[in-house]
């Protein structure tokens, strides 16, 4: 009689163990055995554990960004990185940070999905004395809640691109009033969206362009295509589209070509000019070289080395700067514009060959 009960429990136990074990093997496999099994989970005293809460894998930029972090920490001696993919949800990121705190990681790196709503959980990290490094987008929280921030100056990126556009239009003798521009925006509330959108509205005001309208493209190709198709129906005289990342631009180009139009710089001949940001994938740079994308404001995703440098400094007791900007360029296939100037400062344009 007892045997039956016993066998029932055994079945349950036997079926559960491989499941746990399965997760175990897979984890060592996927990291090519960088971590020596148990030693890794025991969080050794001399290994610096870094928890990285990444937003997701929505764009090429994001993928390169995650890769940069993983590669840097895999090659660095005495570090291990725990990456958490939040699938675009802030609640997942908050859960991940709480888990890092319970795991007692040494550093938390956060790529926040939105700017606000971080006070509570960052306060918890501070109480646990775990330094938090924010990357990419900004958080709208008291400066004492995080150690430092690494990322891009999104407003500057935008100013560079709009200044390039202005220079190009002047060169072609196109008056500002002939420019009909629409905006495919990024994820609402993200720093990149806020910076890039406000840069555009400044330029529209300063140069007297006609602003047709804006829609949120969520940084994805599918949405970019959908919105551009709407724009083409709604605004017959549209001649410039301002996309806030490359994936949206790819979608926009698809929609333009599907409508039998052409994406290019020659707006006098009915082409539609596409400008965008990021410039991380070969596809984007190729498109810029071909002239399908007129100009790309670079957004540097290689945060890994910079973050590692900051952590090494912190380990050595050196306080880093609160805000660290990464260097960024601007790409175009148009070889007649080699420099642009923003707020009195001049920047080189990286000219791509066809």
């Amino acid at each position, binding site marked *: *009689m*007892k045997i*039956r*009960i016993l066998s*029932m*429990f055994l*079945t*349950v*136990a036997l*079926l*559960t*163990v491989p*499941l*746990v074990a*399965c*997760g*175990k093997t*897979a*984890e060592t496999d*996927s*990291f090519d055995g960088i971590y020596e099994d148990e030693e890794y*989970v*025991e*969080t050794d005293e001399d290994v610096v554990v870094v928890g990285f809460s*990444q937003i*997701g*894998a929505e764009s090429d930029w994001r993928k390169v960004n*995650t890769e940069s972090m*993983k590669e840097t920490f895999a090659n660095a001696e005495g570090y*291990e*990185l*725990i*990456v*958490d*993919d939040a*699938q*675009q*949800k*802030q*609640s997942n990121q*908050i*859960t*991940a940070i*709480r*888990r890092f705190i*319970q*795991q*007692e990681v040494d550093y938390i790196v956060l790529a926040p999905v*939105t700017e*606000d*709503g971080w006070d*509570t959980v960052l306060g918890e990290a501070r*109480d*646990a*004395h775990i330094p938090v490094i924010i990357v990419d987008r900004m958080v709208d929280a008291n400066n004492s809640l995080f150690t430092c921030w690494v990322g891009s100056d999104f407003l500057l990126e935008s100013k560079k691109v709009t200044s390039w556009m202005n220079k190009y239009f002047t060169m072609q003798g196109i008056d500002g009033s002939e420019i009909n521009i629409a905006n495919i925006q990024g994820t*609402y*509330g993200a720093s990149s969206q806020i910076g890039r959108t406000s840069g555009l509205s400044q330029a529209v005001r300063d140069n007297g362009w006609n602003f047709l309208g804006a829609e*949120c493209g969520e940084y994805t190709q599918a949405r970019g295509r959908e919105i551009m198709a709407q724009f083409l129906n709604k605004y017959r005289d549209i001649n410039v589209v301002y996309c806030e990342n490359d994936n949206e631009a790819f979608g926009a180009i698809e929609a333009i070509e599907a409508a039998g139009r052409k994406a290019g710089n020659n707006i006098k001949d009915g082409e539609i000019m596409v400008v965008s940001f990021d410039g991380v994938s070969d596809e984007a740079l190729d498109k810029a070289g071909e002239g399908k994308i007129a100009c790309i404001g670079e957004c540097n995703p290689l945060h890994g080395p910079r973050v590692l440098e900051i952590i090494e400094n912190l380990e050595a007791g050196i306080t880093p700067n609160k805000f660290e900007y990464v260097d960024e360029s601007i790409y175009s296939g148009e070889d007649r514009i080699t420099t642009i100037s923003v707020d009195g400062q001049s920047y080189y344009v990286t000219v791509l060959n066809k």
Partner: protein
Amino acid sequence: MTKKLKNMTDTNLLLTITIVVFFLMYIGAIVFQGKGFLKPQTFFNILNANAALIILSCGMSLVMITGGIDISVGGVTALVSMCCAVYLDYKGGNVVGSLFIALGIGLAFGLVQGFLVAYLDIQPFIVSLAGMFFARGMTTIVNTNPFNVANEEFVALKETRVIIPGLGSVNKLGKYVNAYVEIGVVVAIIIVILMFIVLRWTKLGRSFYAVGGNKQSALMLGINVKRTKFLSHVICSLLAGIGGYVYFLHVGSGAASHAAGAEMNAIASSIIGGTMLTGGVGNIAGTFFGVLSLSTIQNIVSSAGLDQAWWTGITIAAMLCLFLVIQSVVMSRKNAAMKK
């Protein structure tokens, strides 16, 4: 012993399995993942992050026991969050008012869906599918942009922590930190207990099982089948309203993408908890442990540093299969034993 096993109802048998598996899994996590899981706060964090899912799953189990399904609960959650957020921040409302909005939305969905399912005899899946699309669509109409609520009264409630005495832990600086849960967890526990009592010890509770087990017999027993079905949907949606508010209390923001896929997680939790899709079998305590099992799996996957989100999905799928196999094996064994 065999007698005991034979006498155990299907519901209790499946419940036992769920609880055993959960504990085995948690012990496994402690053994394989190390000290993080030993801390009580890790467990409480699982509760904090899943209080809303527990409430949603209670409602889901109820309709599943009655033989139906409701996939609109995730949409209702998003709609409740967005309406409350807009009411609190843009309309200058107060917390009590927002609570009534949440309950009102839940009740409205329950009344309409329950009526369509019970009295017009439409498939519950189709009705709640329409409900889901409607709720998601309405959320976007109410407000497109996601935003965080700044209302002070609300933020104070959101930040309220219920300290659990004696279960704190020492952090790496040697400071003692109290263990806590959020208000939502208290609400969830109360609802689990209430639902447990209703289903186990009241006439209404038993009639849910009867309707789900065999409609014809239930009818012959003099149970008002239509009314019972109607009520199950009303309660489920009402719980979705409450769950939505608890979710809102946890995230503190309104967004159209909130609680995406929550209905599927609720169904998965109910199944892991021993509720059968065919109706008539299930237990709220099991559902509670079902949610815990599901989120423990997620926790194990992410603490192991498996950054790919699909790992979670694959593990949950494996676990669902495992539970379904266990359930059917155990049930058939038991049936065979009964025949002897």
